[in-house]
């Protein structure tokens, strides 16, 4: 699904991602962990193609196609989607209007999904204007469910969300990633940034990666990595000699 090879990314004059290699196969969910400011969100933004970043070396291959220089919407049309940790507020643009534009021939799903995520009363509200933390995340997940991407990037889906909403969002994301489909037939892939790991209760992630200072320090079982981080913090990762 996604293959990143020797990726180097600069913001201005400073290199912020160094030699990133990552391979996410069809049906796999990977988890990205790391301290604040380590470059996790920057990696997601580079994969999606956002401006303000300069890919100086390496390639991003998506579904066998080099998308490194492709504009954002082309990547979205190929099947990439992203849940934003802090999406912008767009005053004047109603959530319902955006969903009508993005749903295309899946318009019928909007009602079902918006009810499922308790967002059906938000259709006439400007996107994220005055939304609570949970409402922002539910709006994000709803947009992705309507968009139906094959590869979903989730930037801290549980941050700012209460326990009840985490359950709802977790269940919705599990549907988005076809966790209800047998692994052999599962097509959807994901890359999830999490600090707490709460979301993993719903996702059964396959691989975990730890990023420190813009480079991967560790790859392995996501729950095991999380357990180490929870008990010893990231200093264990930084000191780890296995890298």
């Amino acid at each position: 699904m996604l293959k990143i090879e020797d990726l180097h990314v600069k913001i201005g004059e400073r290199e912020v991602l160094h030699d990133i290699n990552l391979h996410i196969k069809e049906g796999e969910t990977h988890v990205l962990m790391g301290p604040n400011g380590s470059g996790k969100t920057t990696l997601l933004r580079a994969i999606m193609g956002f401006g303000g970043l300069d890919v100086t070396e390496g390639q991003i291959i998506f579904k066998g196609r080099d998308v490194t220089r492709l504009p954002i919407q082309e990547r979205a049309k190929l099947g990439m989607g992203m849940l934003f940790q802090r999406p912008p507020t767009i005053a004047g643009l109603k959530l319902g209007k955006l969903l009508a534009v993005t749903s295309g021939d899946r318009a019928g799903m909007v009602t079902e999904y918006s009810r499922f995520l308790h967002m059906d009363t938000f259709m006439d509200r400007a996107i994220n204007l005055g939304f609570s933390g949970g409402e922002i995340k539910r709006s994000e997940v709803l947009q992705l469910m309507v968009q139906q991407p094959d590869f979903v990037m989730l930037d801290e889906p549980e941050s700012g969300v209460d326990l009840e909403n985490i359950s709802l969002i977790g269940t919705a994301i599990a549907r988005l990633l076809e966790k209800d489909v047998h692994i052999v037939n599962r097509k959807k892939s994901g890359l999830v940034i999490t600090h707490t790991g709460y979301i993993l209760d719903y996702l059964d992630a396959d691989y975990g990666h730890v990023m420190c200072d813009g480079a991967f320090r560790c790859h392995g079982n996501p729950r095991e990595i999380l357990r180490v981080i929870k008990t010893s913090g990231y200093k264990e990762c930084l000191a780890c000699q296995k890298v």
Partner: protein
Amino acid sequence: MPEGIERMEDLSPRDKERLTQTGLEVGMKNRSGSFFQVDQEIRQIAALEEGIEVLSIQEALAKYRWLEDYSWKLVKKEKDQYTRFVADQPDPRGFVVIAKKGSRTVFPLQTCLFLAKTPVQHVHNIIIAEEGAELHLISGCASASYTKTGSHIGVSEFYVGRNARITTTMIHNWGDEISVFPRSAARVEENGVFLSNYVCMQPVRKIQMSPVADLAGKNSVARFSSIVVCTSGSHMDLGSVAQLSAEGASAELVTRAITTGGTIISRGMIEGKTRHTKGHIECKGLILKDGIIHAIPEIKGDVVDTELSHEAAVGKIAKDEIEYLMSRGLDEEVATSTIIRGFLDVKIAGLPESLQNQIDAAIDSAEKSGF
């Protein structure tokens, strides 16, 4: 003056389209009345609902002596060179609309001022909503497709009686060498509501206006909303003034301005003259191509217990908003126009659906031409 134009239907298809863009129903469907003036000739007057009277100003002044007390009382003849010009005309033109006590019209009354050949079109209008009456006006002002130069000077005096309501929506569709100088004022009595909406998304050489609402009655309300797109070569000096003269009066002045190369001066002034009054000015501007948006909001409080505020912001479309929509699969152009459309989408409380639809249609038409 063009020959053979007796009714709006007689206009060329192109000019009919120009009128439709200003919200007019050429066939007068879903309208409570109609007034059509071409240059200085009044062509059509119709009142289609009970309780509404539409007259030319000459007829009205001859018919009702009391109207003298309403003529040139809110707008002073000597206000400026334009009002003096209109006042000096021996043969005044324009219309008088009277919504009788307690009358409520569902459909708006349309007035059309069409500039075809005359160098200067001038009108003097008086609009009265008597006690408890509700009147919705849509004023479409346009020039003919073949008219390149000219001026339009319009004096309008609005009287909103006790418990009455007037909404007036003016949509302009001029040419790039036409100058426009509306001079309007309103007086709002107790519990009266005056909603004034202005939409201009097409080129104009110069437009300059600053309507004044005097909220003279207790708990009276005024709301001015302007939605404008200013193209290169256009100069729009747009303001509105609200005087909170009675207890409980409130006013709101809302502007959404986009420049694609032209100059917009957006003025707003609210004066809190009495206790227990409230006013707010909101001006948001987007500069899409190098041009000028100069927001000048003014608030002046004269007494304790008047609450006045203003907010103004001028800038460009935020890149993160465009990229956010692109990540949902929208092309950059579509993402940009979706955001601009949203920016202009000011829902005006209390506006009948048909008038809101006309405003939406004007925005749609500007969107199609790429703003």
